[in-house]
Structures are given as C-alpha cells and as structure tokens.
C-alpha cells in the first residue's frame, strides 16, 4: 500500500530522451496505466521506479520518501517483466517462493503464502512443474504470483499480456481486474494497447516521446482529449479529423475538428449544419457496422445503428453531435 510520486523525472540515454520530465502521482491502491506507442519510454519509466535504471534528473517518491538511490531489492516493489523472466531451473513453487526465501520466512508461513498465490491464480497442481512445462498463460500467472506473494507496496507490470494470444489476453484482462479488486495493491501497468488501458485502469497516462501528454480517468481522456495525439490514440476505430473550414458551424481554418464515429449520424436529405459527403464501403466489426463516408478529400468513419443500411455511392449529409465535438488548434495540436 503506497503512493508513488514522480517529480520532473528524466532519463537520458546519450542523446535519446527516453523519459523527459515526467510528473505523475499514483494514489494508494490505484491501478494506473502508462499507455503509448512503442518506444515512448513506458518501460524505462517502470525500470526507473524499480531501480533498474539510474535516474538522470528528478525524483521518485514512495509515500513521500525519496528512493532515487535505493537499490532494487530494498524498494519493496515487485515487477513482472514482459518476458515473464521465470527462473528456468526452479519449479513453479520455487519461483513463487523466491522472494519469500530471501526474506527468510519460516517454512510454514512461506508455504501458506505460496499456497495463497497458487490458489489466487488457479495454479494448484502445477507446483512441481518447471517453467518450460507450462503454457504461456500459466507462465504469465506464475510471474504474477511470484510478484504478488511479496505483498509489495507497488506492483509494476510491463506489457504482461502482450505475449498471449488474443483470446487468452482477453481472459487475463478480466483476471487482472479481479485480482486488483482483491489485493488492492498500487499497480502501475504498461501497455501499448489503448483498449487494455481503457478497460483496466482507474486512471491512465498517455505517453509520447518520453512525455506524459495527459493523465486522467479513462472517460476523461476519452471524452476530453487534450491534444491531437491523445485524441487519435485513444478510441477504436479512431477519431475522425476534419479541417474546420468545411464544417458549417465552425468555419475556422485554424481549427481541426475531431469527432468520434459514434457521434455522427447521417441523413439522406440536406439538413442545417451538416456536411455533404458520399457513402463508401460499410465495414462490420461483429456487433457494430461502420460506414465510411468521403468528405472532400478525407474518409470519415461513422457507426451505424444495427438496423441501418446504405448502398455505396449515395449522396448523404453527416450530422454532428455538437456536444461531442473536439476542437484542436492546428498549429499547436492542443485542445481549444
């Protein structure tokens, strides 16, 4: 149980600013996700918190105690690596008990904690197996269990689901959520998958080029993205962007208008404040159908109601939900 605070945190590798002046507070018991494209500095941030990288500038505080110079094994932090990093010469049991053994826990105590982890992660019966005899999902759970038994102040997870196949990934997502409800540890989770970030987190922080662009609850970030990158990165299918001058009620060439596919409707007859376009292909994503509409030289996607159908090549008018419109300054990319 602990609060983590990053203050002007920087990590440079020579010229590369892997982490560039990050300010972030993760509250006690919170599930916070760092999300961003590959190479944006997510792993480096985690490794700084874990103590595996030396801080270039700034401070890392746990419960207001500066821990910059504490070696990893004195931080009471656990981390699950993207690769799981299970010890190949140790059984499941020994892997999970590894940290407890170092803490010199007595046998009974250790056994009951390992048993708790095995039970929590549904690994009973696999105690004596070696990592190479486990499936991907099982390995992943062993790695989680090994970190959780230590009852760390903070649990760091670096893309723990990215090595699993799609189906297992969805199941483990739910498991993780259930797990967090149960153990209530502060979790900092790293992923490049915005859907994962949206479903799992209490709060998420969008990163790009070593900086945090926006931090907030999933709905805050989804509903009020503060810049173009965040707007385009969060949400799937992605937000549409149109130049302000072609939108009748905006009429401003310095503005880029963003609108999500579900905030658009179409009309076959001209209506006020609508934008003229031509229907193109329809795409089905299982439960939802998306229509692509050609608007001047852009292709806009919109979500159709289940019963709606439209042929290709029809002249239509796009109707905007004005409350859900996002306006960005074209030159700075910031929300206005």
């Amino acid at each position, binding site marked *: 149980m602990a609060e983590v605070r990053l203050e002007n945190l920087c990590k440079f590798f020579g010229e590369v600013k892997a982490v560039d002046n990050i300010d972030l507070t993760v509250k006690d018991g919170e599930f916070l996700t760092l999300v961003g494209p590959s190479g944006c500095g997510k792993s480096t941030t985690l490794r700084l918190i874990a103590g595996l990288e030396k801080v270039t500038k700034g401070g890392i505080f746990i419960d207001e105690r500066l821990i910059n110079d504490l070696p*990893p094994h004195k931080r009471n932090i656990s981390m699950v690596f993207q690769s799981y990093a*299970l*010890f*190949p010469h140790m059984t499941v049991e020994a892997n999970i008990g590894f940290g407890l053994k170092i803490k010199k826990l007595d046998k009974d105590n250790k056994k009951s904690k390992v048993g708790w982890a095995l039970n929590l992660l549904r690994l009973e019966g696999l105690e004596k197996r070696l990592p190479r005899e486990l499936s991907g999902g099982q390995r992943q759970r062993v790695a989680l269990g090994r970190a959780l038994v230590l009852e760390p102040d903070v649990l*760091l997870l670096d893309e723990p689901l990215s090595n699993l196949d799609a189906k297992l990934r969805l199941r483990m997502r739910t498991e993780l959520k259930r797990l967090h409800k149960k153990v209530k540890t502060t979790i900092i989770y790293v992923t490049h998958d915005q859907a994962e970030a949206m479903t799992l987190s209490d709060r998420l922080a969008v990163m790009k080029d070593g900086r945090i662009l926006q931090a907030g609850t999933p709905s805050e970030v989804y509903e009020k993205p503060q810049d173009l990158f965040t707007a385009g990165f969060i949400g799937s299918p992605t937000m549409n962007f149109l130049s302000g001058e072609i939108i009748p009620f905006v009429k401003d060439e310095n503005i880029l208008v963003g609108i999500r596919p579900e905030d658009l409707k179409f009309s076959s007859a001209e209506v006020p404040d609508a934008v003229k376009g031509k229907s193109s292909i329809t795409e089905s994503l299982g439960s939802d159908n998306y229509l692509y509409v050609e608007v001047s030289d852009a292709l806009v996607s919109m979500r159709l109601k289940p019963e709606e159908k439209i042929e290709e090549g029809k002249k239509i008018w796009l109707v905007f939900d004005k409350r859900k419109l996002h306006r960005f300054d074209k030159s700075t990319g910031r929300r206005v």
Partner: protein
Amino acid sequence: MVKTILIAIVIFLIIFPVFILFKYSISDRDSIVTGGKYPEPFWPFNPNLKMFQSLLVRNDFLQSGMVSLEVGFLTVIFCLILGVPTAYALTRYRIPGTGVLLFFLLSIRLFPDISAVIPVAEQFFKRPLSYLPPVVLVSLAHTLLALPYAIYIAKGVFESIPKDLEEQSQVLGASKAYSFLRILTPLALPGLGAAAIYTFLLSWNEFVFAYFILFQGTDTTLPVYLLRILTWSPQKNFIAAISLLMCIPVIIFTFAVQRYMRTGLTAGAVK
C-alpha cells in the same frame, strides 16, 4: 541406402584407427618382435594386457601423466579465472571496441603454432617468467591458446541467459551477490563446464608449446613423452598402449560435454 553406407563409412573411419591402436596394444609382443606371422593377422595376436601392466608401473610414464594432468588443471583454472569475468563483462556491459578485442583474442590462433611458439617461448625463458616452474610456464602457454575459446564459449553461455532473469531476481529482493549465486551460477555452470573440459582437452593434446618449453627438462607432458619414446624406436604395441591411454580422458570428456550441449537449459525462461 546411400545414407546407411555413408554412416558405415564414417563409423569405420572413426573406429578403425582406434581399433588398430587397440589391436596392437593388446597383441602379444611376439607378434611384432620375433618373427610374427606374415601377413599380420587382422585380429589381435594372443591378446593380453602385459603392455598396460608394464606401462602402469613405469615411473617416467606415470610421471608424465601427472604432469599432463597438472598442466591441464592449471590451464583450466587460469582460463576460467581470466575468461569468465571477461566474457561476463563483454555480454552484460556495452564496451567500446568489443569487436576489435575479440578479433585480437583470436589472432594468436591465426598463426601456425610453430611460428607463434618462438616469440612466446622466448619470453618464457627470460626473467621474470623464467623463475616460474616449467609446469606453470606450459600452463600459461596453454592458457594463451585456450583462453580465446574459453571466452567465446563463456560469452555464448552468458548470452543465452537473459539479463531479465538477474534483474527480475533483484526486483524480487535479491542482492547482486545472491542473484549471482542463485540465478546466474546454476544456469551458467553446465556451459562453463563445457568450456573447462574443452580447455583441458586442448592442453592435454597440445604438443608444440609443451615441447619447446619442456624438452630440455625432466618433467614432460604425455605428448612430449611419446616423442621421447619414439626417438628410441620402440615396438608398435608399446606406443599403441600409450596412445590408447592418452585417448581415454578425451573420450570420456567428449561424451560428457555432448550431454550438456544438447540440453537447452534456459528453455521456458522468457516468453
């Protein structure tokens, strides 16, 4: 069918020389010395173990065997002490010029031993190195030859152990020392064992350097001893018995190494 024949040929090529050695070593000396039958029989003539019996009580032979063992073990120790930390540093830290360094390490092996031996031996005969006992000098020479290989093998071993494992153990509360002992060592040991055995065999078989350094003295390694024997043209079966005894550690160790090379010990660690 072709495959079977090829395999048969290969087996023949491996087995036949050993068979010849074996045959001579257990043949009665009469078959070679005092008018044995002509043509020589394919199978051993009056097989017996007399040659081995007489060899194993010969002081000069046993003495040379001991010297070979000593030199071998010293070489292994030198190579591991120098090679393992070097290999570890080369894999775990970014060091500028690593490629050049590795090239120079191997460069001594680019010359034929017979050309490399003179400058090396000359250093060994000068002070201060000349104060060291000859056995140590030969071990140092063998270290020179084996170290590059030891480093290469050990480097491969450490590269096969993901850095993640060490970092993971530290995040779980292990100090650097604990992580070295409990994670790195058990995983590296089989591979380093292979490096040690390779080094030992190289030293055990080495002739040119040992000859230059030891020939004048009383202590000799087995290959040099064999040459000494040859100079007084002994019977074939005597030499065969020595050669066969020299092969034994080679055969044992080669099998031992193979077992380790096959097991993928780090499987299942990452991903």
